[in-house]
C-alpha cells in the first residue's frame, strides 16, 4: 500500500459499494479502497455511523503508513497530520442520501475537512479514474480532479471519434505518431487500460490513442478497442518518441494475454 490518497465509496447498497471497490482495487492495487453501503438496518440506505467508521479507519491506516510519521520523535500527532496534508481521502457517493450523509459527517467533525473531500462524480467511473490516478502516487487535489473529470469522459470520446470520422488524414508513421494493432482478444479492457494509463502518467508526455487522452483509463476503456483494431498512438512533449514506442510495445505485447 504505497498510495497516499485512499478512497471511500459510499453506496445505498452494500453489494454495490463492495463491487465497485473490488473493480477499482483490481485496477489500482496500491490504493486503499473501502466500500461502505447499506442503511442502519442493513437494508438499502446509508448509515452515518458506518461512514464515520470507514473514514476513521482509513485515516488511521494512512497515518500509520505515512513514511515520515514522527521521524524525530516529536509529537506524533502533529507530524502525522503534516505528512497527510497532500494525502487524504477522496469520497464518492452514489445517490441522494449517500452524498448527504457524507456531507453531514464532514459537518459534524471539522477536523476531517482538510483531509477528506467529497467528489462530485459518477460512482463507477469516478471511482475507477480516481483509483488509477491515486495508484501513481498523486496528491489529494489530483485524485479529486481525476474523479471530477470522469463526468466529461463520454463527451471527450465522442469528440475524438467524430474528429476521426471527419477524416483528418492520419498521417504517416513517425517517431511521435505510430499505428499499432490490438493483439489480445479482449483488447483495452479494464486491466490493460489501467496499465497503459498508469504508464502514460508515469512518462509525463501527452499521449493520445485514437484521439483520446491515454492517461485517462476511462477514455481508453470507452474506445472499446478489441482484437484486430488499429490504433493510432500519438504524443507531444519532450519524451514524445519514448512515450509512443513504450505504449506501442505494451499494446503489441498483448498485456500478457496472447
Amino acid at each position, binding site marked *: 500500500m504505497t498510495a497516499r490518497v485512499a478512497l471511500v465509496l459510499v453506496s445505498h447498497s452494500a453489494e454495490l459499494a463492495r463491487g465497485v471497490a473490488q473493480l477499482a482495487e483490481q485496477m489500482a492495487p496500491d490504493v486503499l479502497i473501502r466500500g461502505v453501503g447499506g*442503511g*442502519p*438496518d442493513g*437494508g438499502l*440506505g*446509508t*448509515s*452515518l*455511523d458506518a461512514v464515520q467508521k470507514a473514514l476513521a479507519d482509513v485515516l488511521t491506516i494512512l497515518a500509520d503508513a505515512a513514511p515520515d510519521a514522527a521521524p524525530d520523535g516529536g509529537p506524533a500527532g502533529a507530524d502525522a497530520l503534516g505528512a497527510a496534508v497532500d494525502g487524504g481521502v477522496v469520497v464518492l457517493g452514489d445517490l*441522494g*442520501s449517500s452524498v*448527504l*450523509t457524507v*456531507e*453531514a459527517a464532514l*459537518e*459534524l467533525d471539522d477536523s476531517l475537512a482538510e483531509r477528506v473531500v467529497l467528489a462530485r462524480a459518477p460512482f463507477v467511473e469516478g471511482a475507477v479514474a480516481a483509483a488509477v490516478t491515486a495508484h501513481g502516487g498523486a496528491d489529494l487535489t489530483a485524485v479529486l480532479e481525476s474523479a471530477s473529470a470522469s463526468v466529461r469522459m463520454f463527451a471527450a470520446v465522442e469528440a475524438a471519434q467524430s474528429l476521426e470520422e471527419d477524416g483528418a488524414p492520419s498521417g504517416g508513421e513517425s517517431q511521435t505518431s505510430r499505428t499499432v494493432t490490438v493483439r489480445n482478444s479482449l483488447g483495452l479492457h479494464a486491466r490493460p487500460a489501467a496499465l497503459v494509463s498508469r504508464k502514460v502518467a508515469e512518462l509525463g508526455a501527452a499521449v493520445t490513442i485514437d484521439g483520446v487522452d491515454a492517461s485517462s483509463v476511462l477514455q481508453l476503456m470507452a474506445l472499446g478497442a478489441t482484437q484486430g483494431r488499429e490504433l493510432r498512438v500519438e504524443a507531444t512533449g519532450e519524451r514524445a518518441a519514448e512515450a509512443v514506442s513504450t505504449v506501442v510495445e505494451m499494446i503489441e505485447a498483448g498485456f500478457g494475454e496472447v
Partner: protein
Amino acid sequence: MKQEGLKDMALDADWAERWVRRTADAVADAKDELTELDRQIGDGDHGENLHRGFRAVVVRLDDEASGRGSADERTVGDVLKLVATTLMSTVGGASGPLYGTAYLRAAKVSGRPQIDPPAVVAVLEAALEGVSSRGKATVGEKTMVDAWHAAVEAAEAAAGDGGSEVDVLRAAAEAADKAATATIPMVATKGRASYLGERSAGHEDPGARSTALVLGAAMAAALSGPTPTDPRSAA
C-alpha cells in the same frame, strides 16, 4: 387565547424534549400516510425511516433521563443536538441527513436554557438554512424547504407583531401545514420525485408533510405541560 401561568409555557429544554416526544408520536401515527405519499412520488421509505429515527431519539432521551440528576442544566440546543445525531445515524434515507442538519443548525443557535420569540425565529431560520443548503433546494421545488420557508416567514411576522412564544410557534405550524398542502399541484424539480417530472404533480410532498408534523408538535408541546407519556411527569 391568553393563558394563566405563562411560566408553564417557557420554551426550555423540557419543552424541547416534549416537542421531540410529540413529534415521535405524530410520526408514528402518520407513518403509513407518509410512506404512501412517498410511494407515489419517491422511494416509499419516508414514513418508516422517520419513524425508526424518532423512535431511536426517544430511546436515547429515556436513557439520558435515567442518568441525569434533577438539577440538570440542559439547554434547548442540547436536546436538539441529540435529535440531530440520532436521526443522522438511524434514518438511513435522505431525510436523515436533511432533518439531522436542520436540528444540528437549530441546536447551534439555541445553546441556552430557554428561548424567547426572536430566538424561536432564529431556530427555524437555522433549520431552513440547514435543509436548503444540505439538499441544495430552494422554495418552489416541491420539497420540505417549502414548508420550512413558509414557517420562517410566518414566525417572523408573528414575532414582529410582538407575539408570544406560542403565537410564533402556532403561526409557523399553520403556515407549514398550508405550505405542505400547497405542494400537491407542484412539479418536483429536486429530490427523488424530480425523476418523475410532470407526473409528480397531484401528490403531496412527504417531506413537506412531515415538516408540518414536526412544527405542529412544537406548538402542541408549548401549549401543554408534561404529557402523560413523559416519564418525568409521573415522578
